[in-house]
């Protein structure tokens, strides 16, 4: 599950093995057990809602990464394929006779086929080139279809969207999916199936060729592969799983609107995938989990969560292009050497201080925002469970002091951390 997509040319033996079509049992088994157990740990209805959203985002992010991470194609309009799959499923829910004949758990297949169909049409002309041209076309097509949603009312339902009822389907072994928890297990099962399929896809010769075309299309062509067709098949497969994600969205929320199609949605999935890390298979999973948590939890706490997210995203692109997964995998060499423990204390010092500094900076931002935009006369604000007057000097002095001290300690301890890092990544006895 942790195989890096970029194969290491110095280890040909490993490269051969990387193509084997076997699912490693341990991580996938843990994932399956975790999915089974989670609702018993977090029993609240709101928690199950968040977990459903998370699972849908994971499938979508993995599908998106089939393009971005594995194929090197940056799409700015991928929400369209998920959205159209979802719309199709709501229409099937509203076809009484037909829907009564199929069990709900099979519905995502139809959503997937719909997304795949659309991807086949669009992909036929958009996958000629990768890179910038592909990104532009995906944006244009995405905008076109999103704009169509207010014109083609019969399919997209105009401004208010379309809604259905999932319980009219054929009962699945007696389950009618009336309750949220039943839907959770449906989504969890589909998550496991589609994640496994996507993982296996990345192991097929086609999936490996997608990596080759991403890294060096010219060379892939010389080897006799058509870069365009490889990209096309990646695109179609990604469209299928995006459609599955959209179908699960339809099953979960029973309503789809223009918001599921537009560029904002496409941008969010890019954010989630990239923050998680595009270089590893588990990156998008991580990204979708963290992103959904941030989106639901942080947006309750502050109006400015988009601002923080923007900063984190830009910093990630500039300094950690591997994303979260890349950061985690950076520690593998140290772990192999058995020296990971030596990083603990320096990390605690530097990152702890850094976190305090960030909290201080966030406090400054929040106070500035309050000063500028709160209604006149409203001087009291609450931050980190403390209520104070934003127009007096004291909180400002405290916040500035905390920020400066936090970042000051980071500066002072950074060399020690770098030293510890080098130490942990050097085998014992090796010349320094």
């Amino acid at each position, binding site marked *: 599950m942790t195989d890096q997509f970029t194969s290491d040319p110095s280890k040909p033996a490993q490269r051969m093995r990387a193509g084997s079509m076997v699912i490693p049992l341990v991580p996938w088994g843990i994932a399956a057990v975790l999915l089974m157990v989670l609702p018993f740990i977090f029993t609240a209805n709101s928690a199950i809602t968040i977990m459903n959203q998370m699972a849908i985002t994971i499938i979508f992010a993995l599908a998106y990464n089939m393009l971005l991470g594995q194929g090197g194609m940056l799409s700015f309009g991928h929400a369209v394929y998920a959205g159209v799959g979802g719309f199709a499923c709501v229409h099937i829910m509203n076809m009484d006779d037909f829907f009564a004949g199929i069990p709900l758990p099979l519905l995502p297949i139809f959503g997937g086929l719909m997304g795949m169909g659309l991807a086949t049409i669009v992909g036929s002309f958009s996958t000629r080139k990768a890179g*910038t041209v592909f990104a532009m076309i995906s944006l244009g097509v995405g905008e*076109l279809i999103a704009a169509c949603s207010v014109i083609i009312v019969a399919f997209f339902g105009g401004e208010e969207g379309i809604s259905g009822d999932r319980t009219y389907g054929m009962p699945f072994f007696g389950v009618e999916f009336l309750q949220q928890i039943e839907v959770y297990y449906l989504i969890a099962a589909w998550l496991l199936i589609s994640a496994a399929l996507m993982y296996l896809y990345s192991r097929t010769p086609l999936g490996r060729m997608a990596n080759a075309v991403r890294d060096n299309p010219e060379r892939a062509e010389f080897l006799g592969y058509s870069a365009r067709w490889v990209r096309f098949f990646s695109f179609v497969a990604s469209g299928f799983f995006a459609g599955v994600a959209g179908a699960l969205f339809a099953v979960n929320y029973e309503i789809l609107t223009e918001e599921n199609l537009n560029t904002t949605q496409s941008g969010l999935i890019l954010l989630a995938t990239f923050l998680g890390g595009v270089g590893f298979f588990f990156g998008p999973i991580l990204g979708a989990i963290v992103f959904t948590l941030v989106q639901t939890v942080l947006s309750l706490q502050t109006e400015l969560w988009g601002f923080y997210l923007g900063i984190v995203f830009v910093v990630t*692109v500039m300094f950690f292009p591997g994303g979260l997964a890349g950061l985690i995998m950076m520690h593998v060499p140290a772990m192999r050497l058995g020296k990971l423990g030596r990083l603990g204390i320096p990390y605690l010092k530097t990152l702890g201080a850094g976190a305090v500094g960030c909290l201080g900076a966030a406090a400054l931002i929040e106070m500035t925002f309050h000063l500028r935009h709160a209604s006149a006369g409203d001087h009291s604000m609450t931050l980190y469970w403390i209520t104070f007057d934003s127009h007096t000097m004291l909180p400002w002095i405290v916040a500035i002091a905390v920020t400066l001290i936090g970042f000051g300690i980071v500066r002072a301890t950074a060399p020690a951390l770098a030293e510890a890092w080098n130490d942990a990544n050097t085998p014992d006895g090796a010349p320094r």
Partner: protein
Amino acid sequence: MEPLILKQKSRRASGIGITPDMDLILVNLIDGLVTGLLLFMLSAGLTLIFSMMGVLNFAHASFYMLGAYFAFQISLYIGFWMGLLIAPLVVGVLGAGVERYGLRRVHQYGHVPELIFTFGLALLIEEVVQFIWGKNQMPYATPEILQFTAFSIAGNSIPAYKIFMIFISIAIFIGLLYVLTRTRVGMIIQAALTYPKTVEALGHNVPLIFMGVFGVGTALAGVAGVIAGPVLGTFPGMAFVLGSIVFVTIVIGGLGSLWGALVASLLIGWITTFSKAYNLRMEDLLTWAGFTKPEPIWDSAWRDLWSITSPQIADILPYILMVLILIFRPYGLFGKRDA
């Protein structure tokens, strides 16, 4: 999606669609020209930056928005004209800074991360604008000296500000053309577009040229923002409204082609203006083509097709045009085959 067209249009709505006479065509030609030239100011910078660095600046329209906001803030203190002068300079310096400290760093990772970086920047700029100025539209207005009717055509008055916009854009276009084709700096830039390595070997500072072009391109977007802000509205969504149309423009024109950007901008300006001004109905078109209208229409699966009118689809016409261009001429109207 917000209409791309200038607001003054709605006043004439009553006279439209009845007699398509010469006067109306002239009025719409002027309106389309204003929209098209505005688009061109954005797409010119974008296409220059693209042909130079091979990266599409997703945040280009955000610099346009920054231009409008800066000019509004400046106009509160020292008036519109100083805003027109200072705001683009500030935007240009900001743009150059972004190239120097952001893009140049991300460049080592490749084109796709560069594109993602500018995308993140666009998000961040929108959030920053909301942080500073809030979510509401700013009361940024045209200067009083230009608030009169320049002339009128058959009862349709053309405000002086529109004429002013046309002149500013044409002046900038001519200036750009002169600098690029007649001056030494322009020659070096053109050479650096095609053979950056050779130009560097001849002793020119190519990274500096890149930074300069990026700065000038964003400053151009800033100018567009300053003069469009009062008529199209200065609000946090203004970058998003125009952004994707600008991309469509340079794809249609051919990535990296300045002339293509001009032609495509004018084409899009006129197409959207005319399809909004003349209420062409799909119903008439289908009847003319020999189809019979299904009755009752509200129960037919084709009802949306029959009820389409041209003002309704005016905003998506550029996208349709783009898809058609991509299918039949993938490198755009004026683009090179390998672009």
